[in-house]
């Protein structure tokens, strides 16, 4: 039976994942909020597999575990070492990163990944962020328009107009396009 160390240190809930893994016949040890003790826990628990949220800051601590254990009889490697980019992409989509003890075949990981993909709460916010892209090229014309308006209003040159717009945007923690739209709107109002 494979022993899984499940690291629970992000906002995502691993509750259902744990239950599902247990049901699938794995021995699951859950750890939460112990980032700095991770190397010690791995040493004590001797897991065959460590599962951790791909977006966890604790991934960097696992990196230390990987390096420290490379001289031990049972080195822990991230399973992406299995030269299977497909499996890696699958895991990234599932949002879990798995570190396995070398020697365990990738095929034995598959059931774990299947469970993880079905049960791990996906990060909706991240997905929304990915969808909000590819709009910038259309924004260029709006920025140019605003720059032209500002040059007229302030009687300044192109570079000065850009600098004014950028300073305004950065001070308000906004993108340049937002300030450009404000200038255009203001110009419409006053125009």
């Amino acid at each position, binding site marked *: 039976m494979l022993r899984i160390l499940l690291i629970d240190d992000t906002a995502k809930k691993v509750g259902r994942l744990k239950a599902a893994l247990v049901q699938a016949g794995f021995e699951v040890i859950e750890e939460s909020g112990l980032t700095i003790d991770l190397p010690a826990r791995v040493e004590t628990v001797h897991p065959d597999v460590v599962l951790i949220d791909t977006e966890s800051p604790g991934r*960097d601590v696992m990196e230390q575990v990987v390096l420290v254990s490379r001289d031990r009889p049972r080195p822990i490697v991230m399973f*992406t070492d299995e030269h299977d980019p497909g499996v890696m992409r699958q895991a990234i989509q599932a949002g879990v*990163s798995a570190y396995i003890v070398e020697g365990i075949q990738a095929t034995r990981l598959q059931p774990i990944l299947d469970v993880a993909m079905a049960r791990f709460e996906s990060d909706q916010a991240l997905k929304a962020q990915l969808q909000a*892209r590819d709009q*910038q090229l259309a924004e260029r014309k709006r920025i140019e328009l605003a720059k032209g308006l500002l040059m007229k209003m302030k009687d300044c040159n192109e570079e000065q107009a850009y600098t004014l717009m950028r300073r305004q945007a950065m001070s308000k923690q906004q993108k340049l396009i937002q300030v450009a739209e404000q200038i255009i709107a203001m110009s419409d109002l006053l125009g």
Partner: protein
Amino acid sequence: MTNPIPVTSLAWVNGSDAPEKPSLNLGFMALSDCASVVVAATQGFAQAYGLSLNLQRQSSWAGLRDKLASGELDAAHSLYGLIYALQLGIGGSAATDMAVLMGLNQNGQGINLCAALQRQGVTSPEALERFVHQSRTKLTFAQTFPTGTHAMWLYYWLASQGIHPLLDVNSVVVPPAQMLAHLQAGRIDGFCVGEPWSAGAIEQGQGFTLATSQSIWPDHPEKVLGCTRAFVEQYPNTARALVMAVLAASRFIEQNNENRRSTAQLLSGKAYLNAPLSSIEPRLLGQYQDGLGNQWHDPHALRLHDEGRANVPYLSDGMWFMTQFRRWGLLREDPDYLAVARQVQQLALYRDAATAIGVPCAGPDMRSSPLIDGSHWDGSDPYGYARSFRLHALAEPPATLARR
């Protein structure tokens, strides 16, 4: 010359040099030295070159590395050492051919100790050295990534003070955002980290700065704009346009203090560093304090541009990290230092981009730097340099290890 959108840009975009891939995913970690990347992406520096940059904040260096390697990120704000570890296959990822497009900054990291050590009078390197060798308890020092720049600065500095970083103290990895919590809980005694976390520790009275990274190596290399070599080879025009945009942004930030201040305000925002302005702005302006009552204007403060000097991907900068990997046993054999650096450091592409936007970039491919321990690094003898240190962990032959 400082026109942020060159008159020639339209012709350039419409010509045969147009980016092959117009929309890029750009990773960054929430640290002050990601400034040029964030400003380039949000303040219209990329559109001018026919590019659109989608910023994606990452929560760990390991995650950033995996996404770079898998192509989910096209390029990223990266630790110098992370790119070289990935190139050489050190750590939890298979070796991947990597590229350093440009330097993002020099200086601006810090080695800090906890307030408890301050109360015990351990406020100088000499006092720390005595404490480490006389006290029965082993101190624990944190850094942010096993092959990262912070680990290398910490190791280098400790060793320069006669403290072996792998034998005399415990060395652990702690994510930057968790440093203060671990410090408060008394789980770490010191740490090496980037901004805004050094300034933040001082501000909260949790610790003090014993050494800035620039005191180890004035104008040392730090973060880079990294990507896979496959990306550069497949999309050379895109890579050049990306360098032009980020380089132009770094020049804009350092044009004057007003721009530095607005940059600090932007960075403090929720989507970027999500940290108080007071721990970001002073250091961008070169104002330092160590938490022991000393304040100064640092002549080697965090630099994002420095008229291009902070951005050149010198061969010797890349090679230095490999010599330190070798010194501390992360590399078991000597790589062909120069050959690897020539492949990784994209000097020709950088010079193309810099010339196109009028950033000075003439000069040699290597630079010569004095370091805190009196050594001098100029890239001429990496094999000898890696072996020149009194304190080290040069990997022993397997036979010796087995007998332990």
